[in-house]
């Protein structure tokens, strides 16, 4: 009798649970997907980015988001873009691709950003491009010159590059060396990922027969480059072309001094900031090379330039950046640097795109706007953007410069080209663009 009652209770329990679970569901009909303006309200636009705020890649790069934030503050104070304030979420990935994946996940799902803007790094951003495109999230103005952000919009329709890509940088460097140093024995110093690979590809278009040695390094790996520099020395290298980040410029200089390797140096734009490298040399040698002497060590080095920097205080754009930084930097005591200028210049392009897009902003519309109008954006870049439906690559050229007393002196006019076998041509037209008087693109 008791057993029967118990069994009845059990059966009722099971049935109730089952029907409750089934009732949670909704049967067969499903609603359709809605449009996507996630992260956009009538008064705000939320964007996000990953940067190395800590770790070996942090020096310099961690300053870029402060440039962004200062420029957005400046724009927000003037009423925002179509009445919307720009809010930026910045997350630290320590230049570790696995962290980039994790923080991007958080930005998409927890912070619900409208778009990723200027996430930094080739190996790092590569880890999240697929996800951003799968989820239909605009991935604008990646802070890296790797080709993969823009050479195949069919594969990554939401992703746009911004800076001059490493392949055309390699081409421009290669042509300059071929024409001006035809007898140089070239050693390549490369980051062992797409960054180094793209640069090598462009360089080899001109210098294939002059390259006598290639040395690679892994970011986050060994910091002693004596073996690499000894190899250059033994192969008789007298010109090193480096596609590396700033810390590795300093490390390669220290190692070259250590093994007594003398050479001319040509660092690509990424690794060549004299002020930063000078500071790094001082801190890495614990003051044995003082910062001033470190900057001096950079004298005579060649590099490239696609933006005017702090060494050109009379440039109209630099004047604008200085004004914005003086009034809107969160850490008032810190100086304007080339990395902050880089951030503000990217922010300028974003505001330009949002202005051009008009009031009705969706994830799809911003991509369309940049494809249709991006190539006519006038901005701080020395060469125009290449944005179109067929190419999402950014600035189309740069000039070769030599570093003297921490400032850059042009060796060539602005050289403009495209990937592949597109010819390299002189074109100073975009270099004379000046900012509007308000400092905010219209």
């Amino acid at each position, binding site marked *: 009798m008791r*057993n029967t009652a*118990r*069994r009845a209770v*059990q059966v009722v329990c099971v049935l109730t649970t089952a029907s409750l*679970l*089934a009732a*949670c*569901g*909704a*049967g*067969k009909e*499903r609603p359709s997907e809605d449009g996507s303006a996630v992260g956009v309200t009538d008064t705000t636009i939320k964007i996000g980015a990953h940067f190395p*705020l*800590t770790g070996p890649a942090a020096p310099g790069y961690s300053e870029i988001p402060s440039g962004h934030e200062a420029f957005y503050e400046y724009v927000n104070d003037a009423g925002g873009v179509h009445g919307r304030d720009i809010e930026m*979420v*910045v*997350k*630290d990935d320590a230049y*570790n*691709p*696995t*962290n980039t*994946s*994790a923080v991007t*996940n*958080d930005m998409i*799902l*927890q912070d619900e950003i409208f778009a990723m803007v200027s996430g930094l790094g*080739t*190996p790092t951003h*590569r*880890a*999240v491009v*697929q*996800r951003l495109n*799968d989820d239909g999230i605009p991935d604008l103005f990646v802070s890296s010159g790797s080709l993969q952000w823009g050479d195949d919009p069919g594969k990554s329709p939401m992703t746009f590059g911004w800076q001059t890509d490493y392949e055309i940088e390699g081409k421009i460097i290669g042509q300059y060396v071929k024409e001006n140093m035809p007898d140089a024995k070239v050693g390549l110093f490369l980051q*062992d*990922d*797409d960054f180094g690979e793209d640069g090598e590809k462009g360089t080899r278009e001109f210098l294939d027969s002059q390259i006598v040695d290639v040395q690679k390094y*892994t*970011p*986050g*790996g060994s910091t002693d480059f004596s073996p690499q520099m000894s190899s250059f020395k033994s192969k008789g290298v007298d010109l090193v072309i480096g596609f590396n980040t700033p810390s590795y410029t300093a490390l390669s200089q220290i190692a070259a001094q250590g093994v007594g390797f003398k050479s001319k140096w040509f660092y690509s734009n990424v690794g060549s900031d004299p002020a930063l490298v000078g500071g790094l040399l001082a801190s890495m040698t614990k003051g044995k090379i003082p910062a001033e002497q470190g900057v001096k060590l950079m004298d005579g080095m060649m590099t490239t330039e696609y933006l005017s920097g702090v060494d050109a205080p009379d440039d109209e754009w630099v004047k604008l950046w200085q004004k914005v930084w003086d009034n809107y930097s969160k850490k008032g005591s810190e100086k304007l640097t080339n990395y902050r200028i880089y951030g503000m210049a990217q922010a300028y392009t974003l505001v330009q795109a949002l202005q051009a897009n008009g009031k009705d902003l969706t994830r799809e519309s911003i991509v369309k706007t940049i494809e249709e109008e991006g190539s006519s954006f006038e901005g701080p870049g020395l060469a125009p953007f290449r944005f179109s439906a067929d190419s999402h690559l950014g600035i189309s050229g740069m000039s070769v410069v030599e570093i003297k007393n921490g400032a850059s002196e042009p060796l060539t006019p602005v050289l403009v080209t495209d990937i592949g076998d597109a010819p390299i041509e002189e074109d100073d037209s975009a270099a004379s663009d000046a900012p509007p008087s308000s400092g905010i693109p219209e």
Partner: protein
Amino acid sequence: MERLRSILGPLARPITSVPLARHLVVALIAFVVAMAVIGASSQYLQTRYAEMAYFAIAAGGLTLLTGLSGQLSLGHGALMAVGAYAATLVLDRTGGETLADVFVALLVAIAVCALVGVVVGVPAARLHGPYIAGATLTLAVAVPRLANQWHVLGGEQGLQVPVPRAAELPAWIQDLVWFFTAVEIDQYSFLAYLGWLLLALTFVALANLSRSRVGRRWRAVRDDDVSAELAGIHLGRARVVAFTVSAMAAGLAGGLMAMNVRLTAPGAFTITLSLTLLAAVVLGGLGSLPGALIGAGVLAFLPHFATDLGESAGLSATQAAEVTPVVYGLVLMLVILLAPAGIVGSLRSLVSRASRTSSLASALGSTKEKTT
């Protein structure tokens, strides 16, 4: 337990008395509950649950090895790396577009890790205590670096992992999930369901193994290897089997991790990962599967909770990120100070103490009744 059995009644008695059936029933109930919770959660929480699932699988394997067989491994992060790379290479070849691709990749990950488990387990079986720890530590340091040696492993920037899009999943799965949860299945929830399904299956297998003759041998070897050997147990064999089983769990976890992170790169498998896994096991309670689950939950949720807390307290993003390891360390210290047997271990002793007191009280009560 007695009381539970009496409530469940005669219907449940034959089921709960067979360990396999009991474990299956518990796992099924747990999976249904997990499915309901996952379905009702935001995508963000779903990724956390998926993370918890693969950490729990790895921690489950480790807790069996360390808690039952008494071998301390500091190299489980490396075994996860092996599983992750194996699964990634398979998914890369097959395209990773269908459910079959996913299961083939995970099976390969388990198989490769079983092989590595044997290879590492044989020499490790000759070692004791700190020496095993040292040997496996080498594994944790060396294995991720291999990726920089061979180009096929993608170097420091790693390999991207293709995952099936929700639309490519079989219609019956889409319908089933929709029917139960009223939410369309997407990549995030798919990975969470997959993780918890495999977690349930793994725990059934591990729990069963630990209740079986194999598990009893492990305990015997752990408690006194000399008497175990006198009793006819082959020490080396028992240890190698334990290491292999544990490596297989780590391999499965690594494969799932690759799909969730969508990238397999050396930076994911630092020595910290191995240590964190061990911390999760100790936190939950050494040798206990529920403990491994709790430890994994702490791993998946605490860092984000701490960061959010830091940010809401007005810290900058960088500062908040730096607070996380401090909070994690504090929690670990508190657990070890206040609950040295781990969370589950301490709860268990609390419950048994309480039931002993109550049975004592009732015994006293009944004697009183008799005397009066």
